[in-house]
């Protein structure tokens, strides 16, 4: 079979084509069948998968939806006030919540239970089958902490799985989570409903991770075949389980039944197609091969005859036509190139013979092959002579440039340059040569050289070179000049600068040549100087002056500039020559000198002290602003205000108008001594009071340390110092007085304490002593009646003494002041005071209850106590009124009585000490103290404290 096909194939190109085409078609058909079968299989699978996915989504929804319903219902229940009340009212729960929950059912068909638990996990109430509040898990505690609803999986007592939902119940008061409502749903019920509704063979629920024993939750047993599909359900909603997965399975595939029919169809179609292709390809190939054979025959004819003008083909279409056209084009091109060659040869001949340059063709070893007519003319040689002489006949072999030139031509293929040539008559002349190496059509190296005589050009170049040397010498001379030189033409563009100019300005010659010659001028260059320069240049006059110029880096410098116009032989302007000198250093020195003078003058005038400079005769040389101000303020005449030229010794001081004549003589003598160099320093303090204020001055005279002599006189205002000294002396006197008071007050307090202790305790102690003696005798006698009586007496005496001592202590430092504050202490004191002295005493207060600083409370209380003591001792008053204001600053205390009063100017030493004491205490806290009294009209004491700031 294979051999038969092979034989048939070799019979013709058309047969071969047919076999080849059939093979290709067979492979294509197989590939198409494979792809289409796979595609059909894939689509079938997709449809099945989509169905399975839809089913599992529905199943998951059947599972999750009822749970969500229960959770919503539970959350609503947990918000009811009945639940929150039940948590607070343990005994009353059975009354309402138990019956309610016993019969409660959630609105879904699966079995559910519900319960309310308290925070300890004890069941408050629940439906019948409720499994119990499961406090063992963390769910309970976490829920109570964060209040978030949670779901868990739990196992009922019969082993079935329950989904429990826990939600927090808030207490009515406080709003904290105080209980947990629990709902439980039978998972098997939910699953069976889904299975029935979706008509599934298999459905299962797993709890992950799978490595644990309780992975299988519930569901039916699996069938043998079919695809399974799993889907996580309750994603992230079940506490304690990584994931819960739902699994279902599909029925077996239907694809294999369709496969056989499809394959049979593909086979029949393939056989039919192959037969058709075989027949059709063979037929069409035969029509294609005929023109090719024709073309082959004609090509053979052309090759044998060499005749190019044969008609080759009548077929102009398709690949065969293109082949024939290419064949024709080839023949045409060969014919055209023959004509082109002839034309090129003609052009070369014209160039070679008519060229103005001498052309030599030669071999690389120097043998000359051909020379053009110009070469014969230049070298004076005939064509024959050229062939006989070598390179040495035309070139100067002594020229040192020759060998490197030949070397360069050999390396690079071309040499351009100047060389020296030799004529037939033996003279030498310079030439410009272009010599190149090329390869001829026989593959041999040849050279072509073009020569041009350059004798005339060389002569002119030599002349120019000499002139240039001369100019360079001149420039060098200018450069050596020690001042900067700039030359510019009548167009004022710079044509030359020397080295010194470059050093001064920082510009290089390249920077500045061709630039305007005023390039150095800048923003601070004086405009009037610039105008002067411009006018000089316009009128072709010389200029000399100083101007601030700028270096290339922008820094300024002072330039002493001279510009001189230069005229040529015809008297017209040829150029300006500018000469620069940097005088910045000199300028700076001048400026510093001026600044220093101004500074000294400013310092001199800024001094507070009045300063006068005198010459050796005592005449005023200079005065400062302080002198002038002082003189003007004292209305001195203008001559004194200026002071210059006056003789200082004839006047006492600048303040002669004031009241200062007493010391003028002394001042004059001292100043004269200094002027005569008898004294190094003269000092004098003197009063100089104006009509409005007291003033003190200190005068000092010092000799001037210069050859001419003279003196410096200073007057310093020392009024402030004098005043401070005076105040300090006054304060010392005040302190001394206070110290004396303090000693007196202490003495008074001690005396009073001694007197009270003695008055109030000694008699009682003595009486106790007597009683004790009597009791001792009674004890010895056995007189118990007497003993009992004595004991009672002693007891009463001790009580009284104790009370007396408490009174004394209270006076010294009332305890109420420490623990209750100022007001209660005052109240207590008034209470005792009015009882003891039978003086009706009232207290008015704004009673804020705020406490003052302890020191302030103490001192106010002391003043209050001292004032009342004075009333008791001296006033013979019936009523006393105390007003105390401690809420807002200023605090105030007012004590007024209706007693006999007194003349404050003639107070007794005793009460005087008390008043002094009160005044000192008030001032100690920065307060003010005032007393008003008149004989027979009572006394008013008023104390005021502005703020706590006065307190130390």
């Amino acid at each position, binding site marked *: 079979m294979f051999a038969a096909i092979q034989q048939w194939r070799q019979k013709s190109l058309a047969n071969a084509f047919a076999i080849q085409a059939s093979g290709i078609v067979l492979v294509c058909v197989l590939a198409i069948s494979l792809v289409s079968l796979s595609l059909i299989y894939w689509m079938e699978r997709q449809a099945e998968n989509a169905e399975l996915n839809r089913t599992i989504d529905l199943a998951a929804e059947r599972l999750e939806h009822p749970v969500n319903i229960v959770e919503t219902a539970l959350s609503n229940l947990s918000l009811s*006030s009945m639940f929150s009340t039940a948590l607070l009212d*343990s005994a009353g729960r059975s009354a309402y919540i138990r019956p309610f929950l016993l019969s409660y059912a959630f609105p879904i068909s699966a079995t559910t239970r519900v319960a309310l638990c308290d925070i300890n996990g004890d069941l408050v109430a629940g439906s019948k089958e409720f499994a119990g509040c499961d406090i063992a898990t963390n769910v309970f505690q976490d829920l109570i902490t964060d209040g978030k609803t949670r779901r868990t999986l739990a196992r009922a007592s019969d082993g079935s799985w329950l989904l429990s939902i826990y939600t927090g119940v808030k207490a*009515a008061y406080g709003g*904290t989570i105080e209980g947990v409502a629990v709902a439980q749903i039978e998972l098997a019920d939910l699953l069976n409903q889904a299975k029935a509704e979706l008509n599934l063979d298999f459905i299962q629920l797993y709890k992950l991770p799978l490595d644990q024993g309780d992975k299988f939750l519930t569901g039916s047993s699996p069938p043998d075949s079919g695809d399974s599909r799993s889907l996580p359900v309750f994603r992230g909603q079940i506490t304690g389980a990584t994931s819960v997965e739902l699994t279902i399975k599909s029925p077996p595939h239907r694809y294999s039944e369709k496969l056989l029919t499809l394959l049979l169809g593909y086979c029949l179609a393939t056989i039919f197609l192959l037969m058709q292709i075989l027949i059709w390809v063979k037929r069409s190939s035969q029509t294609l091969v005929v023109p090719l054979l024709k073309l082959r025959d004609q090509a053979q004819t052309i090759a044998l005859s060499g005749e190019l003008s044969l008609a080759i083909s009548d077929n102009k279409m398709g690949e065969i036509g293109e082949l024939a056209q290419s064949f024709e084009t080839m023949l045409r091109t060969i014919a055209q190139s023959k004509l082109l060659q002839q034309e090129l040869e003609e052009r070369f001949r014209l160039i070679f013979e008519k060229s103005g340059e001498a052309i030599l063709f030669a071999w690389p070893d120097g043998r000359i092959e051909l020379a053009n007519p110009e070469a014969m003319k230049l070298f004076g040689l005939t064509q024959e002579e050229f062939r006989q002489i070598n390179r040495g006949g035309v070139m100067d072999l002594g020229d040192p440039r020759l060998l490197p030139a030949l070397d360069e031509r050999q390396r690079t293929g071309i040499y351009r340059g100047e060389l020296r040539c030799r004529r037939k008559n033996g003279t030498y002349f310079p030439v410009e040569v272009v010599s190149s190496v090329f390869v001829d059509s026989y593959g041999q190296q040849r050279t072509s050289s073009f020569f041009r005589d350059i004798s005339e050009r060389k002569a002119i170049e030599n002349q120019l070179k000499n002139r240039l040397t001369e100019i360079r010498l001149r420039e060098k001379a200018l450069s050596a000049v020690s001042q900067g030189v700039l030359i510019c033409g009548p167009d004022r563009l710079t044509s030359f600068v020397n080295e010194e100019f470059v050093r001064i300005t920082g510009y290089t010659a390249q920077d500045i040549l061709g630039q305007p010659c005023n390039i150095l001028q800048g923003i601070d260059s004086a405009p009037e100087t610039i105008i002067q320069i411009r006018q000089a240049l316009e009128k072709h006059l010389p200029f000399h002056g100083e101007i601030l110029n700028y270096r290339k880096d922008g820094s300024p410098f002072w330039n002493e500039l001279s510009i001189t116009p230069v005229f040529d032989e015809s008297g017209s302007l040829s150029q300006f020559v500018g000469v620069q000198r940097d005088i910045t250093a000199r300028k700076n020195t001048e400026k510093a000198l001026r600044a220093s003078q101004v500074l000294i003058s400013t310092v001199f005038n800024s001094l507070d002290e009045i300063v006068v400079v005198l010459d050796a005769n005592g005449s005023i040389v200079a005065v400062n602003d302080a002198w002038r101000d002082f003189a003007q303020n004292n209305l001195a005449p203008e001559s004194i205000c200026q002071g210059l030229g006056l003789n200082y010794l004839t006047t006492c001081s600048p303040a002669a108008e004031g009241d200062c004549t007493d010391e003028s003589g002394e001042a004059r003598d001292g100043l004269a001594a200094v002027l005569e160099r008898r004294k190094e320093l003269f000092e004098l303090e003197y009063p100089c009071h104006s009509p409005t204020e007291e003033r003190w001055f200190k005068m000092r005279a010092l000799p001037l340390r210069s050859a001419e002599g003279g003196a410096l006189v200073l007057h310093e205002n020392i009024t402030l110092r004098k005043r401070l000294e005076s105040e300090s002396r006054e304060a010392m006197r005040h302190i001394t007085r206070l110290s004396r008071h303090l000693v007196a007050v202490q003495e008074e307090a001690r005396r009073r304490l001694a007197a009270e202790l003695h008055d109030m305790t000694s008699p009682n102690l003595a009486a106790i002593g007597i009683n004790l003696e009597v009791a001792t005798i009674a004890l010895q006698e056995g007189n118990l009646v007497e003993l009992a009586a004595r004991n009672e007496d002693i007891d009463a005496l001790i009580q009284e003494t104790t009370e007396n001592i408490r009174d004394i202590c209270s006076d010294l430092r009332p305890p109420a002041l420490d623990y209750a504050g100022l007001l209660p202490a005052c109240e207590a004191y008034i209470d005792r005071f009015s009882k003891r002295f039978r003086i009706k005493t009232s207290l008015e207060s704004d009673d804020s209850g705020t406490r003052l600083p302890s020191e302030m409370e103490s001192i106010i209380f002391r003043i209050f106590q001292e004032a009342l003591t004075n009333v008791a001792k001296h006033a013979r008053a019936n009523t006393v009124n105390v007003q105390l204001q401690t809420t807002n600053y200023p605090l105030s205390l007012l004590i007024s009585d209706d007693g006999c009063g007194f003349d404050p100017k003639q107070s007794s030493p005793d009460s005087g000490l008390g008043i002094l004491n009160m005044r000192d205490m008030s001032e100690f806290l920065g307060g003010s103290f005032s007393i008003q009294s008149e004989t027979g009209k009572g006394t008013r004491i008023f104390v005021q404290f502005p703020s706590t700031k006065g307190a130390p």
Partner: protein
Amino acid sequence: MRKSLLALSFLLLLTQAAIGQTIKLGIDAEFGIPGSSSAQAIQLGAQVAINEINAAGGVLGRNLEIVLKDNRGVPARALNNLQNLAADSSVVAIMCGKFSPVVIALLPEIHRLQIPYLVPWAAADTITDNDYLPNFVFRLSLRDDWAMQKMLQHASNIGAREVGLLLANSEWGRSNLRAAQGISNVNFYPKIVAHEWFNWGDESLLFQYQKLLADGAQAIILVANEREGGILLNEMAALPPSQRLPVVAHWGITAGQFFIMAVDALKTVHVDVVQTFSFLQDGTSSSKRLLAGTMRMSGNRDPRKIASPVGVAHAYDLVHLLARAIRQAGSTDREKIRHALESLGPYSGATGNLKRPFTPQRHDALNIDMVFMARFGPDGALEPLKTDGHKLIPAPTR
């Protein structure tokens, strides 16, 4: 020589008191309920008493100390707190707050743990009438049956012949209903025409109120805490004047911010409330001492500004009674203290003079004569009403 010996022994005593372990009193009350002041008032009264006792040398040479627990009015929390406190042997007794249901729920556990339980506020009758023997619960406070008698009598005084009861749906409310039903057949009390319940946490009491109004009530006997009391008052104030009945209230509303909630409503609605103690009355020397101590602790110098005065006074007296019982028992043994509490002698306290505070049969220290009616002053202070000079408010005409 004798002096120095005395001083030495005194020093020794002091040192002992200083180094000896403190005797602890647990207070487990509703500290965590926002706006409630009852627990804080109880703590204040107890602390004033303890300060006094410790300043005088403590009890058995040891200082007293309070341990605080918060139950937020929730029985389950109170149960945990009770167990925790009882586990500490230095805790000799526990004091509770105002919630009766809490105490009632704890009764079995109190008697299982056998720890004296002091009640300064919660008023349900069954708290002390609990059938446990020996009984570990001691109350120095109001009883619901006293409160109900006083409220009904007061309703009658202000001219109401028929009243409606508005009750919290809790053991406290039920205790009050039982008390009311027990005496309603007595002639001189007004007739109870209806009673209505509300739950703790309800947002409105208007429905129940209007039912009572429809049933012909001429006054409302209100058994509620401050939250629901405030809600009711504000709802009543929004009604037309003819529909605003006078309210006679149990004292639950005084335990917090009732006055702040209802300050405007109180201008239009008539409210009288049961009390057992007031700082505004001329009191005993104890009550003056308590006032001084309270002022010292709180920095408040105005007796009108002391919140929930009954809680302060009851707790103060109970702590003093406890200290006496410990002293009398000579031990911190709980059973001995319980026994001593039942056999204490006369005590003059802030609430009044008690001849014998408790007996084995009677565990309520106060009596109905100490109960009186009070009214909110313009600053929220509870002002006792004088029964003789009081102007009776006529029932509204309808």
